[in-house]
Structures are given as structure tokens and as C-alpha cells.
């Protein structure tokens, strides 16, 4: 069965590029433009990994992590993908439940390696 990734990112251009990149790795990608929409999609489907941007409208990455943690159910691992250079942001994301934090701009090899490791390939 193909691995499924929920890509929570409001930048359509970047989202589409990441989808193509993951497609080459044999991963199926479902897009979500914000945290609130992503929570609803999680209710409806199975995902092996969540790739999460932090700065988004409606419900941002931290809000999403908080609500995800409060649900009690077993959730897929979360790879936070952030442009922030502040180490406190990464620490806060880990504390909120992120399994790993990757820096924007995208480093193709690092990103693919992290996705592979988190979905258990």
C-alpha cells in the first residue's frame, strides 16, 4: 500500500512542488490549506505522515498541533516545515508534539530523507 502524506501548507506553489517530489518517492499526497481543514481530513482518512507548515491562516501550525494532541487518538507523526530561523520555534514545535522539524527553504535531499524515516520506509 502506498504511503499517504497530509501536506498542510497554504502556499499552493510550494505545495504542488512537494507533491511532485513525493510522487517520485511513491508517496501519495493530500493537500490541506490550513490547520482547521487538516483536522477535518484526519477525521476522514488514514495518513502515515503529516507535513505541517507553521504560518497559515485560519488555524496555524501550533494551533493544529495543540488540537491534534488534545484529541487523544493515535495520530500520525508530524514533520514541521518552517521558515523560522529562531531555535525557540523548533523547540516549541517539538514540545507540542512534532516528530521532526525541517527548515525552509526546501532542501530536497533532507526533506525526502526525513519523510522516508518518518513513514517507516
Amino acid at each position, binding site marked *: 500500500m502506498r504511503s499517504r502524506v497530509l501536506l498542510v501548507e497554504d*502556499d499552493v*506553489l*510550494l505545495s504542488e512542488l512537494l507533491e511532485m517530489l513525493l510522487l*517520485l518517492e511513491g508517496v501519495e499526497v493530500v493537500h490541506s490549506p490550513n490547520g482547521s481543514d487538516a483536522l477535518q481530513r484526519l477525521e476522514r482518512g488514514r495518513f502515515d505522515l503529516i507535513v505541517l507548515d507553521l504560518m497559515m491562516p485560519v488555524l496555524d501550525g501550533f494551533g493544529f498541533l495543540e488540537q491534534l494532541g488534545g484529541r487523544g487518538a493515535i495520530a500520525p507523526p508530524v514533520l514541521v516545515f518552517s521558515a523560522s530561523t529562531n531555535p525557540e520555534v523548533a523547540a516549541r514545535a517539538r514540545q507540542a508534539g512534532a516528530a521532526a522539524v525541517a527548515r525552509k527553504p526546501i532542501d530536497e535531499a533532507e526533506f525526502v530523507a526525513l519523510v522516508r524515516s518518518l513513514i517507516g520506509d
Partner: protein
Amino acid sequence: MRPQWQVAASVLAGALLLATGLLIVRFAGLLAPISELVVLVALVGTMAVTAERRERDRKLARLSDRANAHAARNSLASDPRGWIDFFPAAVRLTGVTDSLLLEAKPEGDFDVKAAVGPLASRGAAGLSRSEDFQKADRERPNPIPVEAISGWPDARLARLDSAGEAAVYWLYAAPPGDDREAILTAAERLAGYVAQQPGLTAEPRRVQRRRAVDAGLFGSVAALMSRSAELRSSFASLQTATILFDGAGIPVQVNSSMERLLRTAGLQASRVTPVDIGASLAGIEAETAREMLGEIVRHGGDVRLSSNAQIGSGCFTLRANATAGQLLFEAINVTDLHRLASIQTELATDIDARIRNDLAAIELATKLAGDDRLPADRRARTLSMIGQAAERTRATLNELGRLVDASIYANEGEPYPVNLRTALIQAVAATKTARDNAGVEIEIQQPTLTSLVMAEPESLDALLQAMLEVLLSDSHRGTTLKAVLGEGEEESQLIVTGGFGLPAERLAALLSIEDRSAPRSARLLQSAKPRVERWGGSFEATSEAGQGYRFTLRLRKS
């Protein structure tokens, strides 16, 4: 000019006048007796000497009045112990060159409370045993001539306090010369005044409200304020803390914001000195503060002591302005501006991230466009994504350009008198890291220029620094840039030359406002011409490939 030379000049002028008259008279056939001419010449000389002496006496009387006014105004009124602080300054106003303020201890020797002048370092050895001392002790408060104190020729001694167990004495000497008697008279008046104050040696009894500033001082402040719209508005503003010092370095006016600020820094407004402001508020070394302030007091103008002084929980820009020997400090609360700067930093970080993301997206899309594993429609899509990312980058850069333009012209104040030489020296100092990295020196020529020019100080600082940085970044290691100051009747100019030099058209393009890719220093120069023209000056940049640059800044004299 020395008095004897003035007399000689007057005599010579009189003689020439009379010789001319004589020539006319001779032609008229009426030869006046020589003896009458000699009397006339002598009369002219005598009148000149009398006028000179009268003017000197008036000047010394004014100094004496000012000394007494200082004594009356602050420290004595509010704190009987304050005389220790104000007294040396008041003494300087009288013209006394050497002064020692002594407090007799019960055991018989003295505590030196304040010392002025080279003789003061010798102390007052043997004073208590001398006849003069005994006489001064009896005949207070009149100053008496002192003859028996070693190292104090022709000094005078006065007992200043009229009551109290611990007596206070003032030992002083006036320089020899025509002014000596007038100086001694001024000092005597000061001693007489101080001696009339009650309880000089008593402990502070109560803190009295400070007296209102007298009309003369108010006039001085008003005159100073009227010279600069910026200073006037600064003084009126509650956000701006200001303190004004007179020529003797004594605080004569302070607003409540500055009093609060000084208290926060552990200083007292009545006792603070200009160097304290530089050292304690601006955080610069006392000796450096002394040099910087001395420089502007001598030549006039403006100096920024700190743009980021942390005082209490606030952040302040500290600036000093000297006009007619008076020194005005202003501390502008820039805490909010710094918050704004932090927002700007976040904004810059965001813009930086957006540009990097788009560039990374272009790179990734380019790779994916050539990856055969992707379906053809997806690969075609990556090509349009490259265009989208490039367009987004262009939009972000335009946004950045607008922000830069807004910040360049933001807070552009009205021009006021600035010391171009001091500003240049500061700008050269600010480029130390760039000079060290480039291995290039900067030589200032004609450094005696003292005229003030019209400019907005902060913008002038930035402009001068930008001029130097552009040349430093484009110079051979081991070379020297030249900064030549000069002045004409109506304007002063600075010509900076050196560097490799770009072709003229390339420099013109670099300094065009359209070139968003230019480095920051060049961007500042892009806006230099219209800005300097607003001050009534001009800015010109020329260059020839391999022959170097020439930046010419002309500023209107104030």
C-alpha cells in the same frame, strides 16, 4: 589682540589719520604746529586704552555677577553642602586661576574640598600656623593678602562661613597683569556673597524647591531655542529630555523628563556635568566624552553620543548641541522606535524567507522539469511554476524597495547647523571595521575647518558614511582615500576621492534610484542628491574606470 598692541594700532591709525590731514592741510597752505599733532596722537591712544579698560571692567563685572548668580541659584538654596560642587565653576567665572577650598578639621589640619589651577596641587601646607591664617580667622569674611604660604605668591585668603564649628576657607590667586585687580574684586564679591549664606558647613536641613530660572537665563535658552526649530520642538516635547549647560559646564536649565532620566541613572540634575551625561547616560568613556564635547564647544555644532543608550527600561538617542558656548543635551526616547525596528526585523526576515523559498522553488521546479519519471503534464506544469516563482520574487523585491525608500525618507527633519568636520571625523571612525577589512586608510585634509553648515545631522552622518563605504569597498588594499574639506564664502565642501573607479555610465546606473540591486551604501547615495538639495547644498558623484571616484558634497554655511 593684546592691549599694548591695540594701543600701538590705535596710535598708528591716529598718526596715519593726522598725516593724511597734514598732507591736505599742507596743500591748503595751512601748516599746523607739530606740537599740537603730537598731543592729538597721544589723546587718541589714551582714549583707546580707557575704552579697552572700561570694556574689560564691564566684562569682569559681568563674570562676577554670573558667579554670584550661580551661587544664588541652585546649590546654596537647596543644599548647603552643594557649594562644594558649584564653587569651582563659580571661581572660574571670576577669572581666578588658582583656588583651594578648605575645611578646617577639629584636629587642626584641612580637608581640601575643591581645587582649581596648578598651584592648588601644592595644597595649603603650613596655613594653620601662619599669621595670615590667624588674621583671616579673625577678620572674616574679608579676603586678606597672604604672604606666608609656601608656593602661593600674592594669594588671598577668605573665611567663607559665618557660623559653625568646622570653618571653611578659600585660598585663591589671580594672575598678574592689568586684569588682576578687577579679578580680585570679582573674587572678593563672590567670597562676600558666599560668606553671607547661613550654615555652609551644616548638614542638609531640607530640600527646597528650586528657584525659578531667572530672566537672563530664560533669555539665553530662548535665544538658543530660536536658532533651531528642532531644538525648540524637542524642548517642548515631553518625550525629549533636555538639559542645558552654560559655558562653565554648569546646568542652567533642565526639564522634568531629564531630571527623571538622571535620577534613573543615579545622577542629580543640580550636580551633573556634561562629561557625566556622556559617560553615565551614553556609556562612553569619560575621556572620550570630554574630547568629543570639548570639540563641539570649541567649534560649535552637533554630535550624537549614542543612538541606543539603555537607561532604566528605556532606550534613548543622546545628542549634544553647542551654540555660543552653551551645551544642550537631548535624550529622545526611542523605545517605541526600537520596537518598530524589531517589527522591521521580523518583516525583513519574512521577506528574506519569501525570496529564499521562491528561489528554492525555482531550483526544485527546474530539476523536476527534467525528470522523466514525472508525467509530461506535470513536467509542463513545472515550467509555469518557475515563471510563477520568478514573478513572486520580483513582487517581493519591489515591496522591499518601497520599504527601503520609505525608511530612507522617514523622519527626515529640518536642517540645522552642523559641524561638517566633526561629522566627517565621526563617519571615518564609524568605518573602522570596513577600513580594517579593506586594508585602506582615510586621510582627512584641511582639518581646521570650523564653519557650521546646514544639514540634517542623522542623514548627513549616513551620507558621509555611505560615501566612504562605497570607496572602501572598491579600493586596492594598502591605498589611502582622501577626504578634503574646504570652504568658500557661502558654502563648505567636502571632496572624497579614491578607489578603482567605475565607468561613468556604470556609476550613473548604480546611483540611479531604479537600481534595486545596488548595495546599501550605494542605495543611500541614490537618495543623496535630492536630500542635499533640500538642505540648500549639492552632491555630485563622478568616476572614471581605473581612475577612481570623486564625490563632491557642498553644503550651505549656517
